[in-house]
């Protein structure tokens, strides 16, 4: 498989502050690659270095094997969709989309044909004559994508393009964008701080924190096998406990939490008895009133503090007995748990493979 983009040890310093530090990765042709991280972690800086707007302090960027050092943004085979879209307000939709083609001095008939085709592709047929301020937010989004895709870039860079849309439209555009990418087959590099966007759309996701990549993996692995505490906290919801290792064998360890509960769980790293650890457990990993026949489960009693009803995402907020720690537990809406009320005491259980613990840092 061809590698479209390869970034090697790239670093960006703003005076003393390091925004991006020794980041390396490769993106295969046709991949939907996301970079997920909290605000200010250096995502935009990284993307602008790939687009050519920011000069890296160190490191190299190759696009289809060509070194991009010293090549201006207008000469790179990549296009960037800006956080604020940056459509040209003085031009119509058609002129916006034709802008790049005109700069390449393609002939007028070809330009018209290509603009038509791309407008159909993004499901905006007949919108060419409209002024930019006459179309809706979702339509602007699609014009911005069309404006770049019509140039057939090797890599399309997207900087939180759905950030400005309202929730409903965002959900819809998420699916459309994924579909569009699959159809055109262009390599997408997509930046977001919304983990659900990254998980839903991507083939691969890199989780970024303070200028470095914490983990680069498939969405499933990020969720199920986080390799760092940051990833465990940032991707999906997680309950966190701190405790000490009681005893350990191979990959499973007995952990004693600070409130005195004893759990058996999996660890990705070597742990010694007495080591301080952080234990993470997904809300949906906890079974409510598990069958007494399941002897392998970690079991503990909790008091229900409140019930957060939200359809399929309903949750319980519970606290272990004699503890003020609040845990989130998924509440399946199959009517099996309708009897649970606030203040009830219930038993929870979880499998030793669904938790994960890391050395405290």
């Amino acid at each position: 498989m061809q590698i479209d983009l390869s970034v090697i040890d790239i670093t960006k310093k703003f005076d003393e502050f390091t925004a991006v530090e020794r980041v390396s990765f490769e993106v295969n042709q046709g991949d939907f690659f996301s970079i997920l991280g909290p605000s200010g972690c250096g995502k935009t800086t990284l993307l602008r270095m790939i687009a050519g707007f920011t000069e890296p302090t160190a490191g190299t960027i190759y696009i289809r094997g060509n070194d991009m050092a010293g090549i201006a943004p207008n000469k790179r085979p990549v296009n960037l969709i800006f956080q604020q879209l940056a459509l040209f307000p003085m031009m119509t939709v058609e002129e916006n989309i034709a802008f790049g083609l005109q700069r390449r001095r393609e002939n007028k008939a070809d330009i018209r044909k290509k603009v038509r085709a791309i407008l159909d592709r993004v499901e905006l047929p007949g919108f060419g004559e409209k002024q930019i301020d006459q179309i809706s937010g979702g339509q602007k989004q699609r014009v911005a994508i069309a404006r770049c895709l019509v140039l057939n870039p090797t890599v399309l860079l997207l900087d939180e393009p759905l950030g400005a849309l309202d929730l409903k439209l965002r959900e819809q555009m998420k699916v459309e964008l994924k579909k569009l990418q699959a159809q055109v087959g262009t390599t997408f590099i997509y930046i977001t701080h919304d983990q659900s966007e990254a998980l839903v759309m991507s083939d691969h996701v890199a989780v970024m924190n303070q200028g470095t990549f914490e983990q680069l993996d498939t969405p499933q692995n990020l969720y199920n096998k986080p390799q760092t505490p940051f990833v465990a906290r940032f991707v999906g919801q997680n309950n966190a406990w701190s405790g000490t290792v009681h005893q350990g064998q191979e990959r499973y360890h007995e952990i004693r939490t600070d409130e005195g509960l004893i759990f058996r769980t999996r660890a990705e790293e070597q742990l010694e008895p007495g080591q301080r650890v952080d234990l993470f457990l997904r809300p949906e990993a906890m079974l409510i009133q598990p069958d007494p026949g399941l002897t392998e489960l970690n079991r503990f009693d909790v008091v229900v503090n409140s019930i957060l009803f939200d359809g399929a995402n309903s949750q319980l907020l519970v606290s272990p007995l004699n503890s003020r720690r609040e845990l989130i537990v998924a509440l399946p809406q199959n009517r099996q748990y309708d009897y649970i009320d606030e203040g009830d005491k219930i038993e929870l259980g979880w499998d030793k493979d669904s938790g994960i613990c890391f050395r405290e840092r």
Partner: protein
Amino acid sequence: MKAFSGKLHIQWTLVCFLTPVVLWLSLLIVLPHIDLLLMSFRTEDDSGRLMWSLSNYMLFFREPIYWLTFVRTAVYSILVTFLTFVIALPVAFYITKVAAPRFQGFLTLLLLLPFWVSELVRVYGWMILLRESGVINHFLLKTGILDRPVEMLYNDVTMIMGLVYTSMLFMVVPLIGVLESLDDSLIEAAYDLGANMWSILIKIIIPHAVPGIVSGSIVVFMLTLGNYLTPNLMGGKNSLWFTEQIYNQFIASFNWNQGSAFGFLLLVLSSLVIWVGLKLTNQKLSKVVK
């Protein structure tokens, strides 16, 4: 009753605000102009009595010296406006988009600095630099580039340079205004889509800046057209400005009727050029002066 008094109250405040404006407009602008207009249509006959006639205007068209100066002034004013724009655009672009934000205020102040001295002093400053025994000639002679001093003053090029210099600020300030409202990401997006500097300028920056360009151009054009001092002091014997003709009629020939006719022709000319300019750029005056 209450509603009535409320309405009355509003009307009184309106009157209070409007009175000075109306007085100012009518006393200082409308009345003198009506007087000038009337005057321009009168001439003295042989016996020295005033009578209605078009002869003041006829004279303008009969004597080439007058209408040639008139055309020259118009063409040079347009040229000055254009040159000022060409120089002011990069300056405004640098101040708004390139310079670090903390220097922006300082740079604008720097532009303003020459206007703290009067135009007369500014023009004399240029003269000290440029005249035959001036600083530049002295320097060029010392370094051996010239072996005899040249007169750099009193020609059209110097005069135009002086006029552009005087007008800079009035073009830069409105341009800074419009360029500040131009989103940087538009420029970057154009660059990213393959545009070079020239097409970014033509396709993105200038279309966005049109309102500022038009309002700056109107101000610069009117100021240049009506300028007296700079063309008079820096221009040569052959580079007459139309304002000098008006001055001559009023002061030297003491022919107020002829002077008013010239004044009115200048007013018509500036209105006409501005109207054509607005039509060409598809702008509305009320929008531009905002």
